[in-house]
Structures are given as C-alpha cells and as structure tokens.
C-alpha cells in the first residue's frame, strides 16, 4: 500500500512510550504502525511458528485423507486438512507482512523450516498410525489449539487477531469433525474402541506438552514480554489446566483411560494434578528428533523443491520479451 510519507518528530524513547501507552489502553497495533523491534520480533517468532505448524500439521492427518473410511468422511477430512493449509496461509501472510521491513519473504520461512531454524509444534512430529489418530487429532489436538487460539483472540496485534477470528470459526468445525470420528469409534465394535484407546494413550504425553513447559513460579523472558505487549494473556499452565478441565471428564465419560492413574482434580487448589511428561524429550522433539520429524520435513521439502519450476514459471508469465 502506498501512503504519503510522514516524518515523525518523536525520539525513539518517546515512540516507545507512546507505543506502550497504546498497549495499556487496549488499542490494537496495525502492520504499518511504529512498533519496537522487540515487539516485531516476538510476533514474527510466534506467528511464523504458528503458521508453519498449521502447514506441517496438515501432514499427519493428510496420511489418512486418501484412506478415510466412508465417502462422507473422505470429503470431511479433505475439507479439514484443506482448512489447516488455509490457516497456515492466513498466518504466514501475517508473518510475512511483519518480516517485510526486514527484507524477508515466505521463501525465507520455508528455507528456515528446512534448515531447522523455524520450529513447528511438538504434536506434528508424532506418529499417526491408525484411523483413530485422525479422530484424536481433530478432537484433542484441535481442542488444545482452540484453547490457545481463543486466548489469543484479543491479542494487541490487529492482523493476528483478524486471522485468529477466521481460524477459530473454522476450528469449531474441526473439533466437531474430530468428535464425530471419535464418537463413532467409541460407540463401535470392541476393535474400534481398542483402536481409539490406543490412540488416546499414544497422544496423551504430546497433548500435555502441547502448551509448553510449566512455569513453576518463574516465567520465561519470552512469556513475560508477550504478556507485557498483550500478545498473549495466559501462561502455559493456565492453558493446560483449561484443557484438562474440558477434556479429561469427556475421556472418562466414554469409558477410556489415561496413561496416568493418579490424575485428579484437586478441589483445594482448584488445579489438576497430573504426571509431568518428559520435558527433556519435548526439547528433542521440537528440535526435529521426533519419530516422524524427518519424514514429514522431507515430504515438505521434496514437494517444495519438485514444484520450484512451477513457481518460477508463473512468476515469469507475461514478462517474456516480445
């Protein structure tokens, strides 16, 4: 977009003060507003990871797209995975506009993904070996995502908020899509129920990890910066607790178990008490050492390289001499 050039007479300090005052008043920041480099960098980090996770997140479910068991499920899961790609598109567009002043583009994001500089969500490094996993991803992984994204709806960065509003509207369909698969299996044959139980057991540690390590009283500088800038408003643990409150009872209502016999809600503290997942393993997974990390990255990278000629071609269309 073009605008008239404006020359601000404020010093950097005054700009920073004005910016923080806007945040405190609950105002939203637009892409072309002045913002501190730190705010921009926090946003780029958060939103590019969120966006690329949607793109990578399409892959585990995509494994089940051609195999979905009925015509209706085939259509529904195609639409669902398509939405995930669409969410990636929305978020990457937001990240790309933030990176533009730094001279970076989507191409750089893709390269960062391939070199491991840009990480994606732990859950999408995991295996999805049965049809029940397609259901559990829709129900619980998307359920976890809804909790995180809903919290971010009132983020101070307006373009992110607009993207999230679109995303949350569709996530409701995703959760229902997942619930529908899960209920069909839960109400089905013994073999179907067993398939689902195994999937819940398999995904449980990853679901706990989804929200990131607990703060244990101290929050990281990243988190506190994000909260100061009102990019996010709740801690990892608060989000995880909200997830447990919503989903643990439902898992029990269906007659399934969790691989954590001691999990319970402690009335006194108003908190769920649960066994911590292996946070050391978590670090390795997001570094790209999960069971399916290499496979999925390879899938993404080969398809990107194989189709480079297409992007080159359409970019030069209409620009040939003569």
């Amino acid at each position: 977009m073009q605008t008239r050039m404006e020359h601000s007479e404020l010093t950097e300090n005054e700009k920073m003060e004005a910016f923080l005052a806007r945040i405190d008043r609950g105002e939203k920041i637009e892409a072309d507003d002045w913002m501190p480099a730190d705010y921009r960098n926090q946003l780029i980090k958060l939103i590019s990871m969120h966006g690329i996770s949607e793109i990578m997140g399409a892959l585990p479910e995509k494994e089940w797209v051609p195999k979905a068991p009925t015509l209706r499920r085939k259509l529904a899961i195609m639409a669902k995975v398509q939405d995930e790609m669409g969410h990636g598109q929305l978020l990457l567009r937001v990240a790309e506009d933030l990176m533009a002043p730094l001279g970076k583009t989507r191409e750089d994001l893709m390269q960062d993904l391939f070199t491991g500089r840009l990480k994606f969500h732990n859950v999408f490094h995991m295996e999805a070996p049965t049809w029940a996993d397609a259901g559990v991803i829709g129900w619980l992984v998307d359920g976890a995502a809804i909790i995180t994204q809903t919290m971010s709806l009132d983020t101070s960065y307006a373009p992110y908020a607009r993207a999230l509003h679109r995303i949350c509207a569709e996530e409701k369909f995703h959760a229902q899509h997942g619930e529908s698969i899960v209920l069909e299996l839960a109400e089905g044959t013994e073999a179907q129920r067993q398939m689902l139980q195994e999937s819940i057991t398999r995904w449980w540690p990853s679901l706990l990890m989804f929200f990131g390590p607990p703060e244990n009283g101290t929050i990281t500088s990243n988190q506190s910066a994000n909260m100061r800038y009102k990019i996010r408003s709740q801690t990892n643990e608060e989000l995880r607790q909200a997830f447990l409150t919503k989903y643990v009872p439902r898992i029990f209502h269906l007659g399934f178990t969790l691989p954590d016999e001691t999990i319970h809600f402690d009335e006194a503290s108003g908190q769920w008490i649960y066994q911590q997942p292996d946070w050391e393993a978590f670090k390795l997974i997001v570094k790209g050492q999960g069971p399916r990390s290499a496979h999925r990255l390879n899938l993404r990278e080969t398809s990107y390289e194989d189709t480079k000629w297409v992007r080159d071609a359409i970019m030069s269309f209409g620009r040939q001499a003569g």
Partner: protein
Amino acid sequence: MGTEAKKDFDIYEVFSQKNVTSSFVHQFSLLAPNKEVALTMARENFLRREPCFNLWVVKRDDIYGLSPEERPFLERLDNKSYRETKGYGDLQARWRKHKERYEEQQQKAKSGS
C-alpha cells in the same frame, strides 16, 4: 515491463460481495504471481463456507491509503447531530400534539352540535 522474472510473488488483497445488494468487503490477502492466478485462488482461500456473489483482487501496491500518523485525523467531534436522525428526536412528539389537538376540536364540535 522488463524481461526479467520477478523474485517473489506479489500481495493481492481480496474483496468479495455476498449478494447483489451487499457492498464489497475486504477479506484478506494472498500471494500470487499475477492477477489471473490471484483471482482463481481467492474464493477457496477465504470463502469456503460463506456465500460469494462476486470477487475482486487488487494488487496491494496499487492501493493508496492513509499513513498511521494520518489515521487519527479521521476522528470527529461528536457535534453533528444535524446529520443524523437522533438530531430530530422531537418531531414525533410534535406531530402527536397536533393530532391530539385536532381530535379534541373534532370531539368538541361533535358534542356541541
């Protein structure tokens, strides 16, 4: 137009119209190499569930707008009731008064005859 290929795709803003009487509304932006490709991808990226009657794509570079410093100047004083219906809130009461007075007169004339 040069003969050289571009390095990156352009940003296109997508606008859509829900039905024939609704206005065009901005949806979102997408990356595309040219307007033809942008248009073929627009509906599926932003309107997979909503009705869509018509579509526009506009290259972002071709949009001219206000800078962040200028945008606050759009704010107005709240002293323009003469432009709005709420500035004419007394009319109904006045019409009612005229109607009542007239009906009273008619009543008197009837009982007087």
